[in-house]
């Protein structure tokens, strides 16, 4: 095969020329959506959720059908995808500026990304505190979708993180539910002496540890500092409370957990707890269903991860967050979208959410004895007491910071990093995030 040089050269030229056409399309200016109540309820609404799971999806289909029945001129196009696929899908839709009218979002920086890019409508006028619609929600839930003093999201469910315990196992070891972090540690020693695993803990994907850290940060670092640090534009992470929180967590794992936690999934650990081989398990309220359905049945209850006695932060903070929906800032049907969301959160529909999906609704008074079970109503009562949510550390912070935390804590658990070194990594990531958001 002979190769004339110039053919190769022209090939390169063609490639370079075609490569030039790849530039991004211009940005649309962030439009302020018109939210005043629609004169006539008519048109097409598009909506994407991440609730494709067969146990959750029917609820949303039902609400859509009911809304369409009540408003025959409205057509709601509902698309539901799974958890991970949703992250990809929404990324693509926002890159192509092709967002639906209503879309799902986790609380924290995930939602804030849309706000910063001008893709989320400012809903303060309709759902802000003090508005008729806004006052139907638990304040902490609304606050989770606040950014720069404005409300951008409607919370759909509530999720709190609690330490669930097996009463039988704890009784046998003579342990009562601890009220301080120090008591928790000594309770672990007792359980260990009694031959059971104190806390079932699996950290295969890193997030299980991050939930502990979220709570311990909230206890150990003043709220104002946390707010500054969790915002990518101002994050510094210099407060000594962060290192303390990591040290406390390390103690907890040493005395209550197992060495192989990084290699075990959360679910494997949970199976261990369900089998009565462990005394406690740190879980979200959305997981509570598993314990009511355990076979053989277990006698269980829960408490908050107790705060260390010397805590500079907010002892009333609770790890957890609502999930929610945002409205597309460029939507021509924003007012109709708001109307639909209002319909979804009537007390009746909120109660149905608890009954059908086993979720807690942020709508006040939606959980009652006949649509839930005692532990769930107890949890709701407790969540109502929470002054604020400590939103999951891995979604509240910028992705770079979250990533540094996830891998850093994994490293700390396997002994290759000290708490100080973890925070060094976090600070470096925060600096980078600051530059990016800049």
């Amino acid at each position, binding site marked *: 095969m002979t190769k004339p040089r110039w053919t190769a050269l022209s090939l390169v030229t063609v490639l370079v020329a075609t490569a030039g056409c790849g530039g991004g399309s211009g940005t649309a200016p962030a439009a302020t959506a018109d939210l005043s109540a629609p004169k006539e309820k008519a048109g097409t609404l598009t909506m994407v959720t991440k609730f494709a799971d067969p146990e959750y999806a029917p609820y949303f289909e039902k609400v859509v059908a009911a809304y369409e029945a009540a408003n025959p001129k409205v057509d709601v196009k509902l698309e539901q995808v799974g958890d991970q696929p949703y992250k990809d899908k929404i990324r693509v839709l926002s890159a192509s500026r092709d967002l639906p009218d209503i879309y799902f979002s986790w609380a924290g920086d995930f939602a804030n990304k849309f706000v910063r890019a001008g893709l989320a409508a400012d809903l303060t006028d309709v759902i802000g505190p003090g508005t008729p619609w806004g006052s139907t929600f638990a304040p902490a839930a609304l606050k989770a979708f606040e950014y720069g003093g404005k409300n951008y999201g409607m919370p759909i469910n509530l999720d709190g993180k609690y330490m669930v315990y097996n009463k039988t196992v704890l009784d046998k070891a003579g342990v009562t539910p601890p009220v301080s972090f120090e008591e928790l540690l000594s309770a672990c020693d007792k359980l260990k002496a009694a031959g059971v695993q104190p806390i079932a803990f699996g950290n295969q994907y890193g997030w299980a540890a991050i939930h502990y850290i979220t709570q311990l940060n909230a206890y150990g670092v003043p709220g104002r500092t946390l707010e500054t640090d969790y915002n990518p534009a101002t994050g510094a992470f210099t407060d000594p409370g962060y290192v303390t929180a990591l040290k406390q967590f390390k103690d907890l794992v040493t005395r209550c957990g197992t060495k*192989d936690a990084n*290699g075990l999934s959360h679910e494997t650990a949970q199976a261990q707890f369900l089998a009565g081989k462990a005394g406690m398990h740190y879980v979200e309220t959305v997981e509570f269903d598993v314990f009511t359905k355990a076979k053989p049945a277990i006698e269980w209850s829960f408490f908050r991860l107790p705060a260390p006695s010397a805590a500079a932060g907010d002892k009333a903070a609770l790890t957890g967050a609502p999930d929610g929906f945002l409205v597309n800032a460029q939507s021509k049907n924003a007012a109709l979208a708001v109307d639909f969301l209002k319909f979804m959160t009537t007390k009746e529909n909120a109660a149905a959410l608890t009954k059908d999906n086993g979720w807690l609704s942020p709508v006040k008074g939606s959980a009652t004895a006949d649509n839930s079970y005692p532990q769930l109503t107890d949890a709701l009562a407790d969540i109502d007491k929470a002054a604020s949510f400590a939103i999951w550390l891995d979604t509240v912070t910028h992705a770079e910071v979250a990533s540094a935390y996830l891998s850093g804590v994994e490293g700390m658990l*396997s002994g290759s990093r000290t708490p100080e070194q973890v925070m060094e990594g976090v600070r470096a990531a925060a600096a980078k995030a600051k530059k990016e958001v800049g």
Partner: protein
Amino acid sequence: MGALLTRWRTWLWVLPAVALLLVFVYYPIVDNLRLSFFSWNAFSPEPRFVGLDNYAEAFADPVFWRALLNNTAYAVVSLVFQAGLSLVLAALLEELVGKRMRGLLRTLYFIPAAMSITVAGVLFSFLYNPRYGLVNAALDAVGLGHLGRAWLGEESSAIWSVIAMSQWQSIGYTAVLFVVAIQRIPREYYEAARVDGSGAVRTFFSITVPMVREMTTLIVILTISGAFLVFNEVMVMTAGGPDNSSQVLGTWLYRKAFFEDDMGYAAGVATVIFVITFAIAALQLAVSRRRRYDT
């Protein structure tokens, strides 16, 4: 004029292939180089030109070097097993085993390679499970229980456990390739060696090894370039964790691009992969073309 048209009409035969290659293979690879000079993500409206910043950042990033090191470890271990041990296996298969049995063993050895890497990866993540996995159970059974560990959950063992799975999967494949190469060696060579009174081991080194040299070279090159492209098994088994200890270039690129929303940095990592694999593949082409002219 008509003749010219007829000549150009022959282009219709290659047009689909050329069009697909240009649009979906060449354009993206050139575009990647361009993108690596920008800072951008799916949410940022306009990419920002940052020159060589992404590369500077990668070269200053310990995880990048860790990933490169892991790829290198992958290459080295794979060489020992897939170019070394598998040749020994192939030679033993040819030397010791009767025809029927040989076909059976050859087929058996190939089975893992016919399974997808994903299946193998998920399967091994079960085997490596610290509580219920076979690996720890096997160690316990032979009294080596103290060596048991959370294979994929510890920084010291995660990448090596993945590499070990990969050897399990690929060794039979290269062994079969070696079998083919050995069968092409003229029998007379072995007979001559026998007449000279040369033992099996000496025959292996004096005849088999040099005579399968071409195949060895190709397997070496394939193995190395495969080691720098590895993605699937790491993604399935550890996703790069814990603490990025089992990150390889491919998974690091993926994580940066699709989890940390740092597309520019990821494009920079992709360029590094490109340079490495392009060099190796060019070497392969050079070797195989020279071979064709030699024979």
